């Protein structure tokens, strides 16, 4: 199903669409307030982008430096080229210690690798411990937003789910009450678990440590209560120095939800006494993406979600319409590199308004990349038929002034005199859900010629 079809399904419920739009826009407005409170905001964005430029050009060296430092710290570093390798490594660590129950904090990488179903198929129970992640795990669906995974759900839906799964009172919808029920449920899970697994926000090459941020403290509960801790990271999470954290941590939570900093910014460097610390470094197409000159900047992403919150298309189509772990504008420039044909509709799920690039804390040229992917998708023949012939026709008409004049006149006549059914039908995408503008009496060219004659 294409993005447009899924989006059309999403907006069937008009009041929910309006709520979704407003609710996410709130995060964008909070981001603005937080950003405006930092006088050096634009300088920080420049610095973040420059640090990431340096990282991309030295990625192999930084990864090796990181591995060496982490190993010296007592961590065990693993390398995985593919999701299958990543999943097998994680399972291997668990099996080696006969661990059957894992608590996991939010990690888009493990979502990308479909780790949960793999572990479950191999007899390991996985419990997502971020509240939003736990909600969607219980509903058996993917996240719809990388920062707020359950943002597509109303409190009534969550209340119903918790009534069924956690035994809360029927009809209870108070977020405070539901969160408390989840707290009790998850505390038990933390106590009974055997290993803690997390994603990684930043991996510091010079010190060999990983930094994980949360607001709930769930990642730390899982990591510290279990002897075995596993951190899974994409190769692009590397930053060179500890002092670079100052730049990225200042930008991350402000961009995401307008907080000056996440509640917990945890720096893990060594295993706890008697414990084991594993770091799994995953490629899964990233090193290939590095070779795409026009698109490699996408690897600078720090997963704040600001581009989603600001995107007029995302806010009104929901994260699930994108059909990939990372939705929204950033997802739409990362996915075509993974499978051009499968994701060929995503770069079109945008108005190219450029707001995503304006809010991006690491200054990724998102809207320009969306435009460039469109060229490639057209060249490689992945455009759908109606778009192909309409674009071809438009190209011809727009490059021939006479044809342009003729078709303009025809269109104005048609809008005025044709019956509604001839204009508002399945063939005219522009007539769906909206009225076309009233046709003017004359074209601008005609008006100009008339006026010029008058003034001479």
């Amino acid at each position, binding site marked *: 199903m294409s993005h447009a079809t899924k989006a059309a399904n999403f907006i069937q419920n008009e009041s929910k669409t309006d709520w979704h739009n407003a609710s996410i826009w709130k995060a964008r407005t909070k981001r603005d307030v937080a950003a405006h409170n930092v006088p050096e905001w634009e300088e920080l964005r420049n610095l973040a982008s420059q640090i990431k430029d340096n990282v991309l050009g030295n990625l192999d060296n930084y990864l090796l430096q990181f591995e060496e430092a982490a190993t010296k710290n007592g961590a065990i570093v693993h390398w995985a080229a593919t999701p299958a390798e990543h999943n097998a490594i994680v399972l291997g660590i668990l099996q080696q210690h006969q661990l059957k129950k894992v608590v996991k904090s939010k990690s888009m990488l493990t979502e990308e690798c479909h780790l949960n179903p793999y572990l479950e198929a191999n007899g390991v129970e996985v419990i997502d411990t971020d509240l939003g992640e736990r909600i969607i795990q219980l509903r058996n669906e993917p996240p719809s937003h990388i920062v707020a995974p359950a943002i597509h759900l109303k409190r009534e839906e969550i209340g119903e789910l918790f009534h069924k799964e956690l035994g809360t009172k029927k009809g209870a919808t108070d977020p405070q009450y539901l969160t408390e029920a989840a707290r009790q449920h998850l505390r038990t899970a933390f106590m009974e678990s055997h290993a803690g697994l997390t994603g990684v926000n930043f991996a510091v090459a010079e010190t060999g440590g990983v930094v994980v941020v949360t607001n709930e403290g769930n990642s730390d509960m899982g990591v510290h209560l279990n002897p075995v801790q596993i951190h899974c990271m994409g190769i692009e999470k590397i930053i060179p120095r500890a002092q670079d954290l100052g730049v990225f941590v200042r930008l991350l939570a402000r961009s995401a939800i307008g907080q000056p900093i996440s*509640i917990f910014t945890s720096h893990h460097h060594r295993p706890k006494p008697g414990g084991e610390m594993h770091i799994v470094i995953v490629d899964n197409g990233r090193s290939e993406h590095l070779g795409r000159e026009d698109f490699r900047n996408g690897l600078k992403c720090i997963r704040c979600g600001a581009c989603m919150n600001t995107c007029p298309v995302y806010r009104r189509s929901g994260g699930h319409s994108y059909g990939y772990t990372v939705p929204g504008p950033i997802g739409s420039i990362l996915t075509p590199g993974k499978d051009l044909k499968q994701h060929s509709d995503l770069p079109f799920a945008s108005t190219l308004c450029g707001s995503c690039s304006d809010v991006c804390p690491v200054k990724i040229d998102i809207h320009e990349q969306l435009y460039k992917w469109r060229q490639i998708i057209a060249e490689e023949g992945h455009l759908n038929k109606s778009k192909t012939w309409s674009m071809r026709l438009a190209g011809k008409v727009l490059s021939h002034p006479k044809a342009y004049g003729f078709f303009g006149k025809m269109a104005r006549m048609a809008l005025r005199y044709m019956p509604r059914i001839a204009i508002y039908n399945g063939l005219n995408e522009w007539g769906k859900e909206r009225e076309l503008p009233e046709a003017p009496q004359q074209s601008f060219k005609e008006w100009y010629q008339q006026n010029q004659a008058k003034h001479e």
Partner: protein
Amino acid sequence: MSKEQILARIRANKPSAKTLPEIPLFPQEVPDLAATFTALAEKGASRCISLPNIEELAALIEVHFPSAKQIASSVPLFRGTLDLAKIDDPLALKDVDLAIIPGQLGVGENAAIWVTEADCVHRVLPFITQHLMIVLYKNQLVWNLHEAYQQLKIDETGYGVFIAGPSKTADIEQSLVIGAQGARSLTIILLDK
């Protein structure tokens, strides 16, 4: 093998190296750092209390946490009801009502406090406790994170964390709830000396 494969592909595909920028400290004139810190902490749902000295702490705990049964403290001069040094299994901390730990450094721009595993004794303590109290001296405050990272050595201990408030979530309809998986409240004690 995967390692060599990944590194080889990176080497083949990476752009030419660009210089790593210097990070300025972005200093700012802040007339009263403690006041700024306090205001931000309270905005983030923490409670901030100024005390002239640590001797006053016991009385304050009696007033604010009268029903706390298990108190774990790693602050010198204040003994809780649990001896942290004698606990091996972090699960034994599951019923702690109040944990009191020292902070290393406070950040004015975001009211975050740096705490290390040396301060917590057990890494899980500030998370598993129902309520958390961090004791900080006013002269341990800096303005922003750049200054903080300049002063800190993040790998000095095996684990260190910036804590900026009580555990919270907004995962249900973006509605803010304090007390998600970690501590339900954070009280910051700012000491004059």
